[in-house]
Structure formats: C-alpha cells, structure tokens
C-alpha cells in the first residue's frame, strides 16, 4: 500500500490496552510489511496515554498532542529496531516517549539509549518462554508497586511520571534530599526482590 494515509483519530477514546504480545505482533507487522492497520491499532492504544504522560511532564495539551503524534511516528519509523527479547512493546514505546520528552520538553540531549542498545538492527523475536517470563515480570512489578508504602510510591511516581529529579522531589515534598533518595532506594529493593528469581 503506497501513498499517504489519513487516520481519523476523532474516535480515539480511552481503551484498555490489549495484551502486550499482540502489541508486539503489531510492531512486527509494521516492521515487516508497513502494515497501516497495525499502526492504527498501536496509535489508538498508545497515543492517548503518551499524551497524558506529556501533560504530566508539564506540556500543555497542544504540545502534548504533538509529542504523542511524534512518539508514534517514531514507532512507525523505527519499528524494525524493536526486538521482542529486549522488553515489551510498551516498554519500548514508553522509552521512545521518555527520550522525546527529554529532547523536546527539556531540550536536553538524551544520553541513555533505547533498551535495544545502540539502535542496532533487532534480533529475532522473543521465544514464547521469554514472552511468558516478560509477562510474569510485568505482573510482579505491578503488584510490588501497588504494595509499596504510599510515601515510597509517591516518590517513584514523581520521578517517572512527572519527570522530577531527586532535588526537585525534595523541594516539592519539602523533605530532605536524603529522605527522597532513601524512599526511592527502598522502593526499588522491594521491587527487585519481587522479580529476583526471574533474572
């Protein structure tokens, strides 16, 4: 299929994200065949959340929308670099959104690469076992996060979703820097314990 395709997103409403593996399948179809329908599915699943993410990071609605579009267009362009054995489709797309946010909202250079390393060509897909392990890991991290004491959970959310540095979190919560650091450290140690045996 050639030419410009216009996707009407006016119907794009919040919907429950489909299972991660099927999202990875869509990515693969984009990579292999430039499948526009697969892209539409990804767009509907992710663009509304990327937009919210950008707004939480301080973007106004218009900028957030542009950045959501740009994130998904990057997904389209780089689909071939996605590799199922390095993480879920959501992880990959979130990382693209994160880097775009550093680049465009903070106007800083991104030093930490995508999880697929240094933009090398993707290796073959995850085996079913790897995909299962990935899903198991996701479920456990989710549970461990939900069980964190609220002060630790808050620090983690401010870091990941609002994009605040340790000192900015300390300022926001009116806490000593050391307290913020130890809350984040404790949160991580609990989450790591929950997935330790999967490594």
């Amino acid at each position, binding site marked *: 299929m050639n030419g*410009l395709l216009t996707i009407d997103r006016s119907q794009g409403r919040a919907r429950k994200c489909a299972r991660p593996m099927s999202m990875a399948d869509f990515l693969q179809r984009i990579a292999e065949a430039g499948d526009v329908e697969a892209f539409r599915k990804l767009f509907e699943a992710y663009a509304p959340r990327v937009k919210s993410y950008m707004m939480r990071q301080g973007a106004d609605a218009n900028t957030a929308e542009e950045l959501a579009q740009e994130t998904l267009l990057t997904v389209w362009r780089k689909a*071939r670099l996605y590799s199922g054995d390095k993480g879920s489709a959501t992880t990959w797309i979130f990382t693209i959104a994160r880097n775009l946010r550093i680049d465009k909202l903070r106007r800083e250079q991104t030093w930490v690469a995508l999880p697929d390393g240094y933009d090398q060509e993707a290796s073959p897909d995850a085996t079913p076992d790897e995909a299962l392990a990935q899903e198991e890991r996701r479920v456990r991290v989710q549970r461990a996060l939900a069980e964190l004491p609220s002060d630790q959970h808050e620090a983690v959310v401010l870091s990941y979703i609002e994009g605040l*540095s340790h000192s900015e979190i300390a300022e926001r919560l009116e806490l000593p820097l050391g307290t913020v650091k130890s809350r984040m450290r404790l949160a991580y140690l609990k989450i790591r314990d929950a997935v330790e045996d999967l490594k």
Partner: protein
Amino acid sequence: MTITHHPAPESLMSCSAGSMPEAFAAVMASHIAMCPTCRGDLAVMEQIGTVLFDEIASTPVSGPIAVDTRRNVGPGRGDEKQLRSDGSIPQPLVKALGNSLDQVSWTHIGPGIWQHRIALSRRGRGSLRLIKVDPGRSLPEHGHSGSELTLVLRGAFRDESGSYNVGDVADIGQDVEHAPIADADQGCICLVATEGQMRFKGRIARLMQRFVGF
C-alpha cells in the same frame, strides 16, 4: 574489568525515569554501557516505568494524523550508522568525543592536571568534563557546593573512600571533601559531572580555580 563501585539504585532509577540532570545522566549512561550488573537493574527499573505508564489515564487525541506509508520513507532501518567506540570510550560519549580517548584534546589546568570540557545542551543542568591526572599526582583537596559523580575511564585513583578502577563510579555527596590521587603507574582519566562549583581549599588551588574556571 571488574567493577566494584556502582551508582546508588536511586540514581539508576532516576536515570531510567529520564529525570536526571543532563551531566549526571551522561555519566550514568556511560557506566551503564560498561556494566552488565547495572544493565540488569535498569531492565527492572524500565519495567517500573512501563507499569506506571500503563496505569496513566488516557487523554483523547483529536484530529487526524498523516502517515507516509511509501516504503522508502516508511519503517526504515533507523538512523544513520553510528561511529563505534574503539573500546577506550563508552559508546554514549562517542558522539561528543569521537571514538577514542587517544584523540581527545586536553587543556592544562594545573600541575599534572588536564581537562576537556564536554558541551551540554543550552539548558542542561550541571557541568560535564573529562579530567586527566598524571601518574601519582593528586587533585587539590576540595569540597562541593553540589554533588559530584565520577566514572573512571582509564587508569585508577584512590581517595579517603577507597580505590576506583576502570568502570567504577564515585558518587560524592555535597558535604564530602576529598583529595583524589591518581594511580602511580597509569595516572587516571575520569568523566566527571558536577552540580555547582568545586570548592578548593588551599590558596594556590583557589587561584587555579579562578583562572581556569575549574
């Protein structure tokens, strides 16, 4: 290469969240490129980001999006091929420094001490530089008005807190004063991120600071 000094988990987390001041993110990224242990931790941390991202409520996206589906501009093979490091320099620094430590140009800033500043984005927070210390030489004792993150790229150094070899990270807090000494045989080249100024103690060191903006 055995790495014994790793960054604190909360620093790695901030890095995975994309929330770290740029100069520090550069040091972290370089360490991560050298350290399989931290890459393992980072994978778990990226999962944390993914789960939180998944839990964000959606905001409706309006208006159409145009995707150019012509194959020549469609899903490509990514960006242009990157220059690969010759092994002496972590891959994330190659864009800023070239692919070998041996090609770096140095500015002499004091007895046995050299530096190479690395430009950050205009709004980037903190400052980033390579510091080269000749064998057996030491940096004047100094404290910091902010934190300092150091990664050894070649040789080794030691200070009051221990000895640091290639790949090791020293995370120096705001209130710590130290006088690092470079390895007697190989000297030391480090990547150093600082937040705020270093505060030198002696008179000569303070003069040096005034002239070179160290």
